[in-house]
């Protein structure tokens, strides 16, 4: 709907302060990278970008400049004159992204951009996305990989069966669902005394000993960590390791959507 590929049933879409409905020119503000590589295999990389750039009213020197810039951003400058069907999958993905950047979009829509991509290309894509975001570009990033969402996204929306079931920052999503941090204290000495000492720290909900460590469940583990360390000192137990594990988006996602396989 944001890219104008589907008509909305209701509501409004505003891009750059302009309503998208009925205004073809608003599409000039949007860059689109589809999930599947959408490029002409029998044209060169440069020909593909030049063609798409012309559709966004780019021509002449400006078009050349944008095309070169897109190649530099995606590290494909040395393959610009080669046919796309000679590219690897990762290169095609990067070129796919480059095509979405030609018009210097206000909003870049990336539909699962790292699917089927080698780790190097995936890393490069994620790095670029973070760079775009820091540069002020709005990025609408869809993915099934929670770690990618955690890495590149400021705000996350979880969609289940076509409905937006949750939306917010990572912390907001985690906190909304009441997830707690897990803290693991590795120590030599009396672990029971250590566990008893840390139970008295405000915010610690539980402390158990297992596997030669004390396992805590606490709210905002990072905030109460100094108090936990102080409690360990009072108990005269020397800590070998401290590991704070915050609840992740995957846990949030599974909690909201369930673990049943989808059709």
């Amino acid at each position, binding site marked *: 709907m944001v*890219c*104008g*590929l589907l008509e909305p049933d209701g509501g409004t879409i505003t891009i750059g302060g302009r309503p998208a409905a009925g205004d*073809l*020119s*608003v*599409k*000039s503000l*949007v860059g*689109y990278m*589809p999930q*599947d*590589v*959408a*490029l*002409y*295999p*029998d*044209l060169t990389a440069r*020909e593909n970008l030049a*063609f*798409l750039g*012309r*559709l*966004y*009213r780019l021509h002449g020197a400006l078009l050349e400049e944008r095309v070169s810039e897109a190649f530099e951003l995606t590290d494909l400058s040395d393959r610009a004159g080669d046919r796309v069907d000679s590219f690897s999958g990762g290169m095609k993905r990067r070129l796919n992204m480059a*095509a979405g950047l030609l018009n210097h979009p206000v909003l870049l829509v990336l539909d699962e951009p790292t699917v089927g991509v080698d780790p190097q290309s995936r890393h490069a894509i994620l790095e670029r996305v973070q760079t775009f975001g820091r540069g002020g570009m709005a990025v609408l990033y869809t993915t099934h990989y929670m770690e990618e969402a955690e890495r590149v996204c400021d705000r996350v929306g979880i969609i289940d069966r076509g409905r937006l079931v949750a939306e917010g920052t990572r912390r907001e999503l985690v906190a909304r669902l009441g997830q707690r941090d897990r803290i693991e204290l590795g120590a030599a000495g009396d672990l029971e005394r250590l566990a008893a000492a840390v139970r008295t720290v405000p915010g610690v909900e539980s402390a158990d000993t297992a596997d030669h460590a004390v396992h805590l469940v606490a709210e905002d583990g990072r905030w109460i960590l100094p108090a936990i360390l102080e409690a360990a000192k009072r108990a005269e137990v020397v800590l070998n390791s401290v590991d704070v594990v915050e609840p992740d988006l995957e846990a949030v996602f599974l909690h909201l959507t369930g673990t049943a396989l989808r059709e």
Partner: protein
Amino acid sequence: MRNALVIAHKDLRQRLRDRSAIVLGLVAPLAIAALMSVAFKGSDTFHFTMGVVDVDRGPVAAGLLKALDAPGLRQIVTVKTIASKRSAADAVRAKSVAAALVVPAGFSASIEGGDPLSLVTLTSVNQTVAGDITSSIATSFIAQLNADRLSVATALAAGVPTSQSAHLEALAAGFQIPERAVQRSIGAHKLKTISYYSPGMAIFFLLFTISFTARSFFVDRAQGMIERIRAAPVRPLEILAGKAMSVLVYGVASLGTVAVITSAAFGANWGAPAAAALLGLAMVVAVVCVTALVMCIARTQRQAEGISSIAVFGLALLGGNFIFLSSSPPVMRTVALFTPNGWAMRGFTDLSTIGGGLGTVAEPVLAILAFSVVAGSAAALLARRAVAA
């Protein structure tokens, strides 16, 4: 429509990189036209050998043989005398004669009676034209004979003495039935086979662009390119128009090149250049509109290929690209007028025979453009749904 031009330019670039475009747009029509030129060489003039069997040996048979020796008939018929009907049948079978005419015994005597015998025509299925001409000759001769008999009978009925009947017969035989139908070409030039099939084959292969372009639309969709283009500030109609417009440039180039080469190399007469160019351009526009319509109607690549095949061969067969429309049944000549290529063939034939200029092709061009408007309008109405599918 600026985006349509961008899409057309891209499509054309892809088309030219594909060697099949050169083959279908240039090599194939030239090759087929050349082949037909060789195959039909000599068909512009027709001559055959006709066997004649005179079993009657009477005066009427003698009159027939004399009629067959007329200067006008000698241009198309060489008469060969054969001894018997059986020998004549063998000769037709062996193709030493194309057809044979048998005057049965008692034919001359039967003319004066009330139940005259019939002339027998022996023909072969492989020589239908010769058989038709032989039958026609026989029919004409019989008609003359009947006219003579009628004249004598009328005179006798009017009171002329029967003793004068022989004299009357001789007089009547000196008269000839005036020709009731004279077929003369209205054109200044005779239609050469190569002049018919050069535009015929060029247009036939032009029709193939419907299939290629419609298929490429669905290939682009499968590659995700239609969706990508739709995400850009491009109207749905511009996408279809762009793809169809690539046909315009390719078609004009193909038709023009074939016209020049067949004219120079094979002596095809396409008529006055400006008129032929206008007619060719109108035909290309029609193909553009049909291409757009096929892209809108089909839902899948397979459907596009199927619909295109029906359109290409249906139009070619009905429009007279393969056969002379003039020798087709009247219903076929009427149906051809519902096809753009049928009008184009009519126009090119008129240019080749009648000559003239833009005035000669005005009616075909208008008819083709009317067809284009209908097809193009339908495509425009369906464009949004077709692109969004």
